[in-house]
């Protein structure tokens, strides 16, 4: 049972990392790591900025044939 729960937790972690769903938490943790009182953007702002960055440079995140 324990192994099963661990496997499920690992799968969840992997999926979130693989899809980059964890990007926001990672960024907040990164900011807080440098300055515990840093102003952090809301998730909405952060995700907007992230997709819009691809607009500016389409070679970022380009996929292959």
């Amino acid at each position, binding site marked *: 049972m324990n192994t099963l729960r*661990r496997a499920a*937790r*690992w799968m969840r*972690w*992997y*999926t*979130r*990392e*693989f*899809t*980059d*769903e964890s*990007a*926001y938490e*990672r*960024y907040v*943790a*990164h*900011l807080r*790591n440098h300055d515990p009182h840093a102003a952090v953007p809301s*998730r*909405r702002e*952060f*995700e*907007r900025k*992230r*997709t*819009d*960055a*691809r*607009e*500016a*440079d*389409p*070679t*970022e*995140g*380009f*996929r*292959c*044939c």
Partner: protein
Amino acid sequence: MRTVRPRSVIIWTAVALVGAVGWAMLALARGEEVSAVWMVAAALGSYAIGYRFYSRFIAKKVLKVDKNRATPAERLNNGVDFHPTDRRVLVGHHFAAIAGAGPLVGPVLAAQMGYLPGTIWIVAGVILAGAVQDMVTLFFSMRRDGKSLGQMAREEIGPVGGAAALVAVLAIMIILLAVLALVVVEALAESPWGTFSIGMTIPIALFMGFYLRVLRPGRVTEVSLIGIALLLLALVAGRWVAESSWADTFTLSPGTLVIWILVYSVIASVLPVWMLLAPRDYLSTFMKVGTIGLLAIGVLVTLPTLKMEGITDFASVGDGPVFAGSLFPFVFITIACGALSGFHALISSGTTPKMVQKETQIRMIGYGSMLMESFVAIMAMVAACIIDPGLYFSMNAPAGVIGDNVQAASEAVANFGYTISPEELAAAAKAVEESSLLSRTGGAPTLAIGVSEIFSQVFGGAGMKAFWYHFAIMFEALFILTALDAGTRVGRFMLQDMLGNVIKPFRRVSWLPGIWICSAAIVAVWGYFLWVGVHEPLGGINQLFPLFGIANQLLAAVALAVCTTLLIKSGRLKWAWVTGIPLAWDTVVTLTASWQKVFSGDPAVGFFQQRADYQAAIERGEVLAPAKSMDDMHTVVTNSTVTGTLAALFAVLVILVLADCTRVCIKAIRNPAGTTLHEAPYEQSKLVAPAGLIATKEEKEELAAVGTGSPEGSEKRGESG
């Protein structure tokens, strides 16, 4: 000094034996059907040996990866694009980025020469060339803070080589987009089921985009699951549509489809990324990983037998209907992505190197991902070779060769030396609910037939064949359409940059007229080749695919040349052969192919001979088969002039890059002290992370020492350092 453990000797001897037995069974079984399990065994055994020994040698001896040297992800960590990413996650990212339609299409076409030549090159090529290129490019880009291939070429070689590399990338991108679009057109033409379900992916993606932007930002997993459910619904609904009175609306001729695809590509590439491109990326990545995983399971569970011969007569004579030319060099050109792909150098430099946690991990990420891609190519080869060869050739020969009805096709295939009755051809089309399977060139439909064969044996039986066929078509079309959008954006970006030197406003990426003009220009150029391909009397895939292969392999030559130059410049002359030999081989193959495409006296191979023959016939007032009218004759003349010129241009560009590299290399060899490297300075790494998939005993101890020993502990560690 490591001691050799007897256990490890036994294990690796066993692995080598599995591979050797696989190869022996494939090579020696003449005149009888061989199980695909031997192909899988040969491939996996060889990969294991290549990974364990050759990639380790490259990492330790040649590149001298240093686990104490901080990677750009650690040094420049900004929590967004630079951040140390778990190696198992990054391998997934990297694989999803490099694997696409290429490794699925190439092997299917190469199957015309039998399964053996293609399989040997897919496996040998990846171990000695393809995976090496990916890993070494990744290494050098990582040492340069994730610089792109073009930037590295400019900095380390010079402005001429750099500029030639840039133009080559743009030209190659154009051909790539045209050929990919052609594959989609060939797969969707006259197929209401396929056209409807692919059409539905647009509203589904728009909904997903809205969901992520407005409703629940960043919830990628849940929106992807919703998207996939809707996608499967669209797939099922496709059958209802095909059987309903709407069928005619979605039954489009190739010409009409071209127009739709061009209009779609211009609009999609101008819309904001969040609306269409980002959600489509999620969908196609999920579909890609899922389908490839299912296919691997399907092949291993059903263990089908290969019906194609090991080596067909087309291999030696070189007059095959799918693509013209002899085994050398055209098998290597056709396989392209599954063994060695120049495009991977664009991914291995740029995005991935900014996320590597530890230098030692590039072996798993660069070399390992490419081995996985090669395995995808092997599965495509299996899928193409388990279907009846008669059906294979009816599907892949151009209409000009086999005619437009099952009777004529059956006779034409008999001339190739294979038998399939008209009834069997009609039944095969009916089984997947398509009106016809004749001349469905481009690889995707053939792959879909193979996939439906395998999947229906595991899930759902013969009744599900049609569903799985359209599932496979959708899966390919989905990521090709995403590639058209993304590729057009990249092309536009380059064009904006170039025009910006002359007309300032073009530089501003947000200047709308600039965006529209450049997007339309890029689409117009690849759209021209797509149009040409669809209306080519000699068969678009037959004419354009070799050009795509040449372009891709020439890009690989550029990447390998940059790698070799960097090896020499960084004082690794002794090891320059590691990329030097693949470079020499690749150059010989591609320049021979370009030479033949330009100068060959055989009109089926040489574009200019073709042009001359058709021109002469026009002057005599004759119509040469397979052209049907004088208009067709003129089309052939124009097309072969354009494609021939392009083949020559590619070769010239690459010779320029190679010459510039040679100059830099000679200079570096003569005066090693005088070279300047643009490597980022050394910084001590503070991160602790395992190199391979599974942490070794020593690595576990190191992890435990810094308090991140448990496997789940490592997931939170990316940030802290």
